[in-house]
């Protein structure tokens, strides 16, 4: 695309800079204010880490963080196993039905609120006591879809003849999977797992509807929602910064291991 005039290229550069400014200034301001000394949440008065210290002493936030970690880890492990098997199963099929594709794709496009109320109705109709376990059951649903999508993208360029070779040489299906297939698709599996972990850590709406009554199953996003309704606080700025740091780290890792979210 070398035919564009310098003026056109300059204005496209300005557009891009403006969009990045729009995307990153709000988050940047939030992060900067989390290191703010003073009690006023939005007026700068010097650098300090004290709000991070006060987070570490807040029992409610710590227990919510622990809940989120449990939900994210368990749902990631289950979804990674099921999603990877699903991806392999779909890719070795010769005939791919439209209904199957729709079923696999659906969790990504159903509005969260719909899945949330559907699961709430379902669990209450079955008289299931809701808590962290029901959040895990729910999070696995959308995480399967994302893991499967990432692994399938990798399998598109997979050389199936090595699998055949292994079988021809007498290896069992399990051995072939463990020694050949899995090591070859490992980057995509790990990247998918990191993506699932991030999605689960950040997910609010479905968790909010499937957590049941009581504070014991409050996750971090639910805690953050409650805090936001209370207003802007320096402690919340610090918490938000930490959550952003976790997401960005997991995604950068995922992207490094396997180009996941952008080509």
């Amino acid at each position, binding site marked *: 695309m070398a035919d564009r005039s310098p003026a056109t290229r300059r204005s496209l550069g300005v557009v891009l800079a403006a969009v990045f400014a729009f995307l990153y200034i709000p988050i940047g301001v939030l992060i900067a204010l989390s290191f703010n000394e003073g009690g006023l949440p939005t007026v700068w008065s010097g650098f300090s880490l004290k709000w991070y210290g006060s987070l570490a002493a807040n029992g409610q936030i710590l227990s919510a963080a622990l809940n989120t970690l449990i939900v994210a880890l368990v749902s990631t492990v289950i979804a990674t196993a099921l999603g990877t098997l699903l991806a392999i199963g779909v890719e070795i099929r010769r005939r791919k039905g439209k209904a199957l594709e729709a079923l696999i794709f659906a969790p990504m496009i159903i509005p969260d609120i719909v899945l949330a109320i*559907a699961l709430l109705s379902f669990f209450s109709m079955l008289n299931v006591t809701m808590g962290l376990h029901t959040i895990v059951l729910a999070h696995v649903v959308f995480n399967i879809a994302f893991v499967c999508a990432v692994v399938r993208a990798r399998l598109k360029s997979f050389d199936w003849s090595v699998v055949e070779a292994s079988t021809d040489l007498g290896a069992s299906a399990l051995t072939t999977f463990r020694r050949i297939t899995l090591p070859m698709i490992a980057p995509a599996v790990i990247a998918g797992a990191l993506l699932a972990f991030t999605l689960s850590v950040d997910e609010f709406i479905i968790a909010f509807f499937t957590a049941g009554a009581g504070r014991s199953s409050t996750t971090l996003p639910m805690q953050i929602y409650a805090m936001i309704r209370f207003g802007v606080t320096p402690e919340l700025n610090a918490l938000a910064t930490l959550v*952003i740091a976790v997401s960005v780290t997991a995604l950068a890792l995922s992207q490094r291991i396997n180009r996941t979210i952008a080509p």
Partner: protein
Amino acid sequence: MAVKLVPSRSTVLMAPALAWLTALMVVPCALVLALAFFRRGIYGGVDYTFTLENFANAVDPLYAGIFLNSARIAGLATLIAVVVGYAAAYAIAAAPRHRQPLYLFLAVLPFWSNYLIRTYAWIVLLNREGLLTQLLRWVGYTGEPPSLLYTEGAVIAGLVYNYLPFVVLACYAPLARLNPELREASRDLGGSALTTFRRITLPLTLPGVAAGAVFVFVLSIGNFVTPALLGGGRFQMIGNLVYDQFLAANDWPFGAALAMALIAIMMALLMLQAFAASRAEGRQSREGEEAGRG
């Protein structure tokens, strides 16, 4: 594809995931669909007699007003997000090839961070003591701080901010796939930059853009977090109505009918998009054939 990998093995591999999705997505969604046809019980439960009154309620003037208003807000947010997102995607696709992955990554990265925090960032910016008020003071404004938060503008800004990365991604794919020779041919034949964009680039990339727009619209209209946090509860979207029916008013059948309406809007828009895209494709290949014969 491997001949030895028998289809029955494929079924075994898919079974656990498909069972999970069936039990915890298909069945619950079917349940909600069924719920929408039942009556609300006297004490908030569900009375299992068939009725269509939930759908009739949804088009009642009171709720129809909320539907229309939330469609207007979601429509505005979608329009702004698509215009800005398309411009950004166009700029990325025009950047040197080796820089494009980084730019795209930077544009999409915010989308994968916490939705609540991205919304909260706007409360920090827009509240009475926020950065924008302070900027106004700094340039000499002394009056009462303007109320920027809890306005329709704040809700729209929040929606655009949250979904813009998604639009950039949706617009980038068709723009990057576009054959640059088409543009060059148009320029060689004397088409101005604007004509080339209007007659070549835009029509060829529009179907992908439209698919992105449908999702932004549906996610916006079904949102309850942004109107609650940035609109201060003064603006109701369909998402807020659904939320209220399930967690406050305890009218689950009506909430279910509203959720189904949301899904119906999404399906209708996606089908419309697919129809328009296939027609556009047909027209292009016909024109291509005619050009080939001529």
